[in-house]
C-alpha cells in the first residue's frame, strides 16, 4: 500500500509542471481569446468593454474579412487536392522502384526542411518579370507566354499555392510511402493471379487500403492550408496579402487586426472562427477514421 501511494505521489509530482504548462499556456489563453472576442479592446486601454457578439457581426460585415475567409477557402480547395493526388502518384511511383528509393525519397524532403521564409523569397524571385524571374525566362525560352504571377490579382493566389504544394509534397510522399509499405504483398499478388490488371489493383485494393492515410493527410493538409501565413506575408509586397487583398488569408487578417490596428476584439473573433473551422474538421476526421477498414 505504501509503495503504491508513493508511486501515485511521484506521478503527480512528475506531471505537476507540465500540467501547469498546458493549463496556463494552452487552455487558459484559449478561454481568454474567446473572452476578448466579446469585448471592445485596443490592448492599451485598461478597460475591456463587453460588447456581446458585436465583433462577430462586425467582421462578417467587413469586406476584407469576407475576402480573407474566401481566399482561405480558395487556398484549401486549390491546394489540398493537388498535394494529395500528386504525392499519392509520386509515392506509387516510388513504390515501383527498387534501386535508389531512399535517395529519391530524401530529395522530396528538402523543401520541407528549408525555412518557409527562405522558400518564399526564392519563389518570389523566381516569379519576377523577365529578365529577372527565372520561370518567365524559361517560359519565353521554350516559346510559351510569360506569366505575371505575384503581381496579378488572378494569378497571385495560385502562385502561392504552387509554392506551398512544393513544400508539402515531401511530407505527404513519405507518409503515403509508409502506408503503402504496410499493405501486405499477398493481397496484390492474389489479385494479380486472379487476373486483375494494374488499374484494377490500384482502384480496388491499394486505394481502399490506403483510405485511413488519405483521410489523415487530407485533414492535415486542410489545416495547413487554413493556417497559411508565412508564405503570403513574405511573397506579397510589405506583407500586405496583395495585390488588392487577393491573396490575404484569415491568419494574415488576424495578424493585421491585432498587431497593426490593435483591434484585439475583432482579431480574437476571427481566431475563434478559425478555431471552430479547425475543430469541425478534426472531429470529422476522428469520425471517419474511427470507422474500421474492411480488409
Amino acid at each position, binding site marked *: 500500500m505504501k509503495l503504491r501511494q508513493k*508511486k*501515485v505521489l*511521484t*506521478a*503527480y509530482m*512528475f506531471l505537476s509542471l*507540465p*500540467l501547469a*504548462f*498546458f493549463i496556463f*499556456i*494552452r*487552455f487558459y*489563453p*484559449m478561454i*481568454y*481569446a474567446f473572452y476578448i472576442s466579446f469585448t471592445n479592446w485596443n490592448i492599451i486601454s485598461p478597460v475591456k468593454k463587453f460588447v456581446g457578439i458585436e465583433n462577430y457581426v462586425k467582421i462578417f460585415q467587413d469586406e476584407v474579412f469576407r475576402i480573407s475567409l474566401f481566399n482561405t477557402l480558395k487556398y484549401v480547395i486549390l491546394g489540398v487536392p493537388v498535394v494529395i493526388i500528386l504525392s499519392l502518384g*509520386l509515392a506509387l511511383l516510388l513504390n*515501383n*522502384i527498387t534501386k535508389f528509393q531512399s535517395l529519391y525519397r*530524401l530529395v522530396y*524532403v*528538402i*523543401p520541407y*526542411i528549408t*525555412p*518557409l*521564409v*527562405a522558400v518564399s*523569397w*526564392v519563389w518570389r*524571385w*523566381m516569379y519576377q518579370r523577365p*529578365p*529577372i524571374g*527565372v520561370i518567365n*525566362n524559361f517560359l519565353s525560352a521554350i516559346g510559351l507566354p510569360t506569366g505575371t504571377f505575384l503581381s496579378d490579382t488572378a494569378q497571385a493566389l495560385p502562385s502561392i499555392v504552387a509554392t506551398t504544394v512544393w513544400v508539402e509534397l*515531401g*511530407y505527404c510522399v*513519405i*507518409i503515403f510511402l*509508409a502506408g503503402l509499405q504496410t499493405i501486405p504483398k499477398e493481397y496484390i499478388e492474389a489479385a494479380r493471379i486472379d487476373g486483375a490488371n*494494374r488499374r484494377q489493383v490500384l482502384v480496388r485494393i491499394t486505394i481502399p487500403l490506403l483510405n*485511413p*492515410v488519405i483521410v*489523415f493527410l487530407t485533414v*492535415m493538409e486542410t*489545416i495547413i492550408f487554413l*493556417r497559411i*501565413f508565412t508564405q503570403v*506575408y513574405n511573397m506579397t509586397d510589405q*506583407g500586405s496579402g496583395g495585390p488588392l487583398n487577393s491573396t490575404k488569408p484569415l491568419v494574415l487578417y*488576424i495578424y493585421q487586426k*491585432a*498587431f497593426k490596428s490593435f483591434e*484585439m476584439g475583432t482579431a*480574437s473573433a476571427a*481566431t475563434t472562427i478559425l478555431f471552430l473551422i479547425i*475543430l469541425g474538421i478534426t472531429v470529422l*476526421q476522428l469520425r471517419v477514421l474511427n470507422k474500421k477498414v474492411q480488409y
Partner: protein
Amino acid sequence: MDKTVKILSYVILTLLIVVMVFPFVWMVLSSLKPFREVYRPKILPENPTLSNYRQILSYSLFPKWFLNSLIVALSTTLSVLFFDSLVGYTLAKFKFPGRNIIFIFILSTLMIPTEMLIIPWYVMSSKLGWIDTYWGIMFPGMITAFGIFLMRQFMETIPDDLLDAARIDGVSEFGIFYKVALPLVKPALASLAILNFIGNWNAFLWPLIVASNSKMYTLPVGLSYFSSENLMRWELIMTGATVSTFPLIIIFLIFQRQIIRGIMLSGLKG
C-alpha cells in the same frame, strides 16, 4: 514487375526531382554569384565568390539572428525532450487516479490553433516583461502535446519488470526514468529532437510578434525584414536565405534517416 513500368517510373521521378531541387539549388548557387551575374539566365556561377556572404555579415545583424535562432531552437528542443518524455513515461508506466483524463486533456490541446493563442500570449508577455527576451520567444514551445503522445507510445513498450528490478535495487523514481527508461527510447528521442529543432528554427509567426527589437529577431524574422528592405538585391537575399538554411542542410546530411523516421512518426497522430 513489368520492366516498362519500372523504367517509366524512374524517368518520371528523375524529371520531377529536377523540379523539386531546382529552387533550392538556385538559391544556393545565386548566393555565390557576383552582382553582375545575378540576372543572367545561367545556372552555374561563372566566377563564384563569397563576397555576398561577407557583405551581409558585415552589413546586417545576421550573426546575432543566427545566434538567437540557435539558442531558441536548442533550448526548446532540450526542454521538449525532457518534459515530453517525462510526461509520456508517467502516463505510460504509473497507475494513478485521473491518468486518462490528464492524457485526454493534453491531447485535446492539439486542436487549439496557435493563431488563437498569440493574442493572449502577447498580452501575457507584455505584462510579464517577456517581450524581446529569449524566454518570450521560447515559452509556447517548451512542452508539446504531440511529443507526449509519441513518447507515451514508446514508453509503453518498456517491460515493467525492468523498472521494478531497478526499484528493488534502490534506484530513485526519477533515476529509473532517467537511467533506465530514457536510454531505451533513444531512437524516438532522436526523431523528436530533430523535428523539434527544425520546427523551432523555422518558426515565424510567434517570433515575428514577440521580438520587436531587431536584435532579438530569429533568423526567419530577420531574413523577412532584411529581404523586404533589399527588394532589388536578390543575390543578397539569396545569401541570407542560404545562411538561414545552412544548419538545416548540415542536420539533414547527418540525420537523414531520423528525419524520415520523424516524419513517419508524425503520421501516427491519425
